[in-house]
């Protein structure tokens, strides 16, 4: 179903397709545990273009492709690419499609992956476009909730932090609106979720846009914490006024439900205290490690 398809927005993946990805990711996870080498994508090439810094996303895509028996070509940094010489993204993509079978792109501008998909006959995977979307992060977030709590339906998810620029929360919120969940949104006033995201949610979707942190923590099955992103602020005074607004500490853990988890797309700064890492509720490193089997599943289904 996903064969040869671009994944630009979370809307590009249907509910049944998500379930297929989750099942395949479980299988990939088993293969990884057993240390079995896979040759599913032998001879296939992934091109990665990261015009914005990335650690986890880039490494997990490249690891996933290598684990599947394929290989990766990439531009080490945007400054060394032809885009830095003034080439359009459209031309870069037209060139890359003849060198590879699938193209992974992260770009600082919204809509970049959509544009790339218009100019490429090879599938494009959006690895983050400005403050737009980050669909593969969302797929692994949903996978993590499902794996850690057994189900997504019936859960209460609280998103905390930068909800304005945080592309992971935009994609995740849109995806969660297809499930029977309740969502609390908590952020400083200037980092509230944009209206253009709220307007896309179904009318009957239960979302509380001005939740209180303490009471939301007590009700939540998932506490999804995000970093306040310094790089998205043009006014550094504005950044300084909101940094450290919310932090998860051992005291926060005490208020949480017994079977609940803390997630974070990482990197974190000070929004989760290091002491929290030892708690069984801390699911953010598992979430990051799920990036490999989930991306293995996705890429193998696209290039299948």
């Amino acid at each position: 179903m996903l064969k040869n398809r671009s994944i630009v927005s979370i809307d590009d993946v249907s509910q049944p397709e998500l379930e297929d990805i989750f099942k395949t990711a479980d299988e990939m996870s088993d293969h990884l545990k057993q240390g079995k080498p896979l040759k599913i994508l032998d001879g296939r090439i992934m091109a990665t273009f990261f015009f914005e810094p990335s650690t986890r996303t880039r490494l997990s895509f490249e690891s996933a492709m290598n684990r599947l028996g394929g290989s990766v070509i990439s531009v080490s940094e945007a400054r060394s690419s032809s885009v830095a010489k003034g080439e359009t993204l459209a031309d870069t993509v037209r060139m890359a499609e003849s060198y590879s079978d699938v193209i992974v792109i992260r770009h600082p501008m919204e809509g970049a992956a959509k544009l790339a998909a218009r100019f490429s006959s090879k599938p494009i995977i959006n690895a983050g476009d400005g403050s737009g979307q980050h669909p593969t992060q969302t797929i692994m977030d949903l996978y993590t909730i499902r794996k850690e709590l057994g189900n997504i339906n019936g859960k209460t998810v609280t998103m905390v932090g930068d909800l304005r620029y945080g592309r992971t929360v935009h994609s995740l919120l849109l995806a969660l609106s297809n499930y029977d969940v309740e969502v609390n949104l908590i952020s400083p006033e200037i980092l509230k979720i944009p209206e253009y995201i709220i307007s896309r949610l179904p009318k009957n979707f239960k979302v509380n846009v001005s939740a209180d942190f303490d009471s939301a923590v007590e009700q939540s099955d998932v506490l999804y914490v995000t970093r306040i992103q310094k790089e998205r602020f043009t006014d550094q005074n504005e950044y300084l006024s909101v940094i450290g607004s919310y932090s998860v500490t051992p005291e926060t853990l005490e208020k949480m439900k017994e079977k609940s988890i803390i997630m974070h797309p990482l990197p974190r700064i000070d929004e989760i205290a290091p002491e929290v890492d030892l708690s069984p509720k801390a699911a953010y490193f598992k979430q990051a490690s799920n990036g490999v089997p989930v991306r293995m599943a996705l890429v193998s289904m696209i290039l299948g």
Partner: protein
Amino acid sequence: MIKVEQTLKISKIKDGTVIDHITAGKAMKVLSILNIDEKSNSSVSIGVRVPSSKMGFKDVVKIENRNLEKFEVDKISLIAPDASISIVKDYEVTQKYTVELPSRIVGIVKCHNANCITNVKEPVSSEFALVSKKPLVIRCNFCERNMNEREILTSL
């Protein structure tokens, strides 16, 4: 009585285009969309806040010797969704139609999001989907941001 008054205020044209039922107060924006200024060759008559049985008040613009292109009509539909266009030849109306908001709006509105990829040097036109007619909301097909009527007005 109103009809006589209107006739006196805005005289008939011989050949050209009449844009009627423009949302009251938007006539000047229509002229701006059509690039009509002091350097234009066409004679133009404008009626602003003309009483209308259908709309309460409306604006009317009559332009001599000018036919509108489709993209111009599409632009007008964004600011005056009830406007009607009459094509006049030798004082007779030969064609009349109401503007219609297109479901896909291509190349006529600049995306309001400065960080949208369509606002840099890339070989694509801006492109929006119509989300709602009243209130007017369109969504960029690239960055997925919505634009309301006020934002559209400043980006035409």
